[in-house]
């Protein structure tokens, strides 16, 4: 064997027990975040001679302090920022002591950069909140504390910086400490340690300062080295999102992924959250040889004792403590896109390893991070935080974010720009679907459809009252039956006499009406039928939501389009006449707005086409699909 391939000697290694802590620093502009990180790096000997030379050079050219070293310049990485003298992004920094390696996310203090702070916080176990001892708590401090709490950080250091500039006054420090304690009580932190320090002078950073004899606690570095943060994930129930199916040959089928939480051992019974299929863990495969058990954080490959057909996005879980599997849940969003979000907007949602189409079904409120009060709202703007209801096209497995930081977290991706539009956290105790676990179905929708020798499809006719939907729908169904197809007609008015008899006609009731019809149509399609829906369904968001229930291309949104005065003139059910007489409220097209489809599969202009001609067009389209 050539020397270069010979492995180096492998006896006792240095740093054998070194652990890791990831934390973020946040604070207002000029509170000294970058200086503090620079100081920590420098005091742990992380700074090299050539970096010190570069820093001295930089400090002369760009420095904002009178010191020889402006530690902040170590961190401002990008040319544009350097010219402006501000940090505009999240920067990651590294330093280590023999006990621990640290990854620091440095995040900006500007209010408009909430998204960067949420980003840094999402992977941190602890947050250092900087406060200028002269200024005390400011709006930014409260805002940042609220955001880190929302993102599940449970350990806080309140760094009361620039203590030298208040003459190391204990009274000032205690005042700030007490003010923060009062504010932070509802935020649910497990530990808050307040430390008086001076990043610029090094007091209580790496070593206890003789100038604060009244402070008995640890200096910052000693606290960071010893704080315990990571116990929750290992104790939580098993969650293993399947990331990639490893099939190198016919004999091996492994499920590669990272254990999100809990522990898994060979022989453990497991269940697939979505399908309800059960099995046992056969092997935990690794290059160095099989492992007996692994816990949260480990990236491994599992094999199961049964032939279970799993795909990326499935979640292998503890059968006794299962996640919720649902298409609807409530969540808090940190809105990160320039374009605001309102109800009905569609996205891609990535949770665990699953990516599914999703709709923000409702915006409920925004969180005022100053007062921690929730105010009703119907939209979220850039950097807003608020509660929404999410509806996804296929059921997904999740826990609440409070219970599990990995399986309760998701991102929303804008479908056109592909930007990451929001960070999402599933709320606790808001979903009716909790503890309803899907039973594995033996007969699949494909099998039902196969027996009927057709591909199910939903034909959704939307349009103003009197535009001709019901007439066309009836002709379409008759023709399809004549062609030997299996069909079902769902007519809005008929359904309102039974399933939807409890609903009125205001906007909320109309949404619910459409939601129910969409669900019924989906069930009928799963039964293998061609479903024809004739329903005013005035709002795009509701129709989009119905479309999302079905696989891509199986929902045909058809606009039955007639001029409003023609509909009124036809008035087949006398609705317009009644409304004019004041006997009927909320008539679409008269009192309520109608939103035409943005991207219809077909537009039928019934002012120009006969009902038979219109039906012909629908039937041709359906036949292409089935």
């Amino acid at each position, binding site marked *: *064997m050539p*020397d*270069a*391939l*010979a*492995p*180096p000697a*492998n006896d006792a*290694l*240095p*740093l054998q027990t*070194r*652990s*890791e802590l990831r934390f973020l620093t946040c604070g207002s502009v000029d509170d000294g975040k970058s200086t503090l990180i620079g100081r920590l790096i420098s005091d742990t000997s992380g700074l*090299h*001679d*050539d*970096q010190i030379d*570069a820093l001295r050079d*930089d400090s002369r050219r760009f420095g904002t302090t009178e010191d020889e070293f402006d530690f902040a310049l170590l*961190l401002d*990485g*990008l*040319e*544009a920022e350097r010219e402006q003298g501000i940090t*505009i992004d999240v920067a*990651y*920094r*590294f330093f*280590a002591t023999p006990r621990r*390696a640290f*990854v620091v996310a440095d995040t900006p203090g500007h209010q408009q950069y909430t998204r960067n702070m*949420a*980003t840094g916080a999402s*992977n941190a176990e602890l947050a250092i909140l900087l406060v200028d001892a002269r200024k005390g708590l400011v709006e930014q401090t409260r805002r940042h504390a609220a955001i880190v709490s929302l993102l599940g950080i449970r350990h806080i250091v309140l760094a009361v910086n620039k203590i030298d500039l208040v003459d190391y006054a204990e009274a000032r420090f205690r005042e700030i400490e007490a003010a923060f304690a009062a504010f932070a009580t509802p935020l649910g932190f497990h530990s808050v340690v307040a430390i008086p320090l001076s990043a610029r002078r090094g007091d209580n950073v790496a070593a206890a300062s003789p100038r604060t004899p009244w402070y008995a606690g640890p200096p910052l570095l000693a606290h960071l080295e010893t704080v315990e943060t990571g116990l929750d994930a290992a104790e939580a129930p098993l969650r293993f999102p399947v990331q*990639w199916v490893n099939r*190198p*040959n016919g*004999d*091996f089928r492994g499920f*590669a992924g*990272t254990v999100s939480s809990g522990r898994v051992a060979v022989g453990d019974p497991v269940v697939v959250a979505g399908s309800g299929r059960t099995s046992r863990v056969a092997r935990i*495969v*690794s*290059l*160095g*040889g099989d492992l007996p058990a692994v816990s949260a954080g*480990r*990236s491994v490959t599992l094999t199961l004792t049964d032939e279970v057909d799993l795909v990326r996005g499935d979640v292998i879980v503890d059968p006794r403590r299962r996640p919720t599997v649902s298409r609807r849940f409530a969540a808090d969003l940190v809105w990160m896109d320039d374009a605001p979000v309102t109800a009905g907007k569609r996205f*891609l949602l*990535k*949770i665990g*390893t699953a990516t599914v189409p999703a709709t923000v079904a409702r915006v409920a409120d925004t969180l005022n991070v100053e007062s921690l009060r929730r105010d009703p709202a119907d939209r979220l703007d850039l950097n807003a935080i608020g509660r929404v209801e999410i509806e996804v096209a296929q059921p997904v497995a999740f826990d609440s974010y409070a219970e599990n930081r*990995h399986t309760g977290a998701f*991102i929303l*991706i804008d479908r056109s720009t*592909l*930007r*990451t539009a929001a*960070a999402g956290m599933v709320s606790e105790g808001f979903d009716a679907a909790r503890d309803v676990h899907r039973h594995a179905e033996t007969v699949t929708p494909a099998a039902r459809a196969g027996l009927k020798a057709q591909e199910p499809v939903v034909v959704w006719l939307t349009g103003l009252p009197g535009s001709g939907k019901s007439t066309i729908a009836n002709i379409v169904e008759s023709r399809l039956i004549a062609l030997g197809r299996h069909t079902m007609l769902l007519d809005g008015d008929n359904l309102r006499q039974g399933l939807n008899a409890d609903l009125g006609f205001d906007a909320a009731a109309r949404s619910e009406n459409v939601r129910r019809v969409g669900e019924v149509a989906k069930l009928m399609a799963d039964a293998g039928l061609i479903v024809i829906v004739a329903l005013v369904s005035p709002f795009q968001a509701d129709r989009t939501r119905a479309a999302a229930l079905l696989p891509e291309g199986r929902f045909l949104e058809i606009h039955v389009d007639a001029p409003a005065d023609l509909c009124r003139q036809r008035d087949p059910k006398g609705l317009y006449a009644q409304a004019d007489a004041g006997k009927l409220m909320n008539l679409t097209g008269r009192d309520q707005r109608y939103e035409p489809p943005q991207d219809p599969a077909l537009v039928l202009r019934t002012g120009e086409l006969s009902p038979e001609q219109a039906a012909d067009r629908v039937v041709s389209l359906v036949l292409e699909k089935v």
Partner: protein
Amino acid sequence: MSPPAAAQAPKITPSGDAVRRSSLSPHLQRLEDEAIHILREVVAEYRKPVMLYSVGKDSSVMLHLALKAFYPAPPPFPFLHIASGWDFQAVLRHRDRIAAAYGLDLLVHSNEAAARAGVNPFDTETGEYSRLMLTEALKDALDLHGFDAAFGGGRRDEEKARAKERIFSLRASGHVWDPRNQRPELWRLFNTRLSPGDTMRVFPLSNWTELDVWTYIQAESIPIVPLYLAAERMVVERDGALIAVDDERMRFQEGENTVKRRVRFRTLGCWPLTGAIASAATDVRGVIAELLDARSSERQGRLVDAASQASMERKKREGYF
């Protein structure tokens, strides 16, 4: 079908594994798990990924992680080496030996037109040389094969511009990086989506430091190019750097002489542009000991970087890794 030969590491015995597995500190274990997660995410989500393989220590770690991530399957992507024509001979030997030992699908690409036009590290301005022989060659190779995602071994501790780059770093058409238009990266939920013409650069070692790389190499017994270890080498002292004379193309300046020195390299670039450091570290353990005691940062030996404070950021905007 038997398990692919490529997945079998050449010198690993079962007893060695037991030692090796227990030898990762919690910190290195976390870095390894994170990197494997990233590697798998790319393979699951992209049509045609590639791993940039510079043969250096970071590439060697990435390769090792890839062998682990997809075991018992071989890494399901090719490995691309951008050869400048001024690569250390030992690097090329190591590359070919490793590719053969693991059965890698190895692609080698060079900017031959520029080489023919006479571009070389002595006459061409260093920034321009680097742009033509490395950046342009890389972009050209990525376009030629139509790769939609490329792994690079970049680490955030290397340089300030890297510290702010994402793990999944979007490149618009022409491979340009826009530091002001980066996607927020939350939890382990990487937004991997691409618009037509976009590609992704992916850095599984983002959160590793130079020391982490070396302690991992030691713990996992990863083969490395011998140039990383100290040996007697013929060098020329130039502008405070020690330049090893790797072949007969060396151009000496007035008054320069080769001297024999005990040196090693911290990074391996084009040999006329890569400074060696005096060292007595003849094994990885020795390198780690010297690193714990180091007084200069890793990229100091790279003449390419010294040109400008912000040279890395500029190079990255142009499409460099």
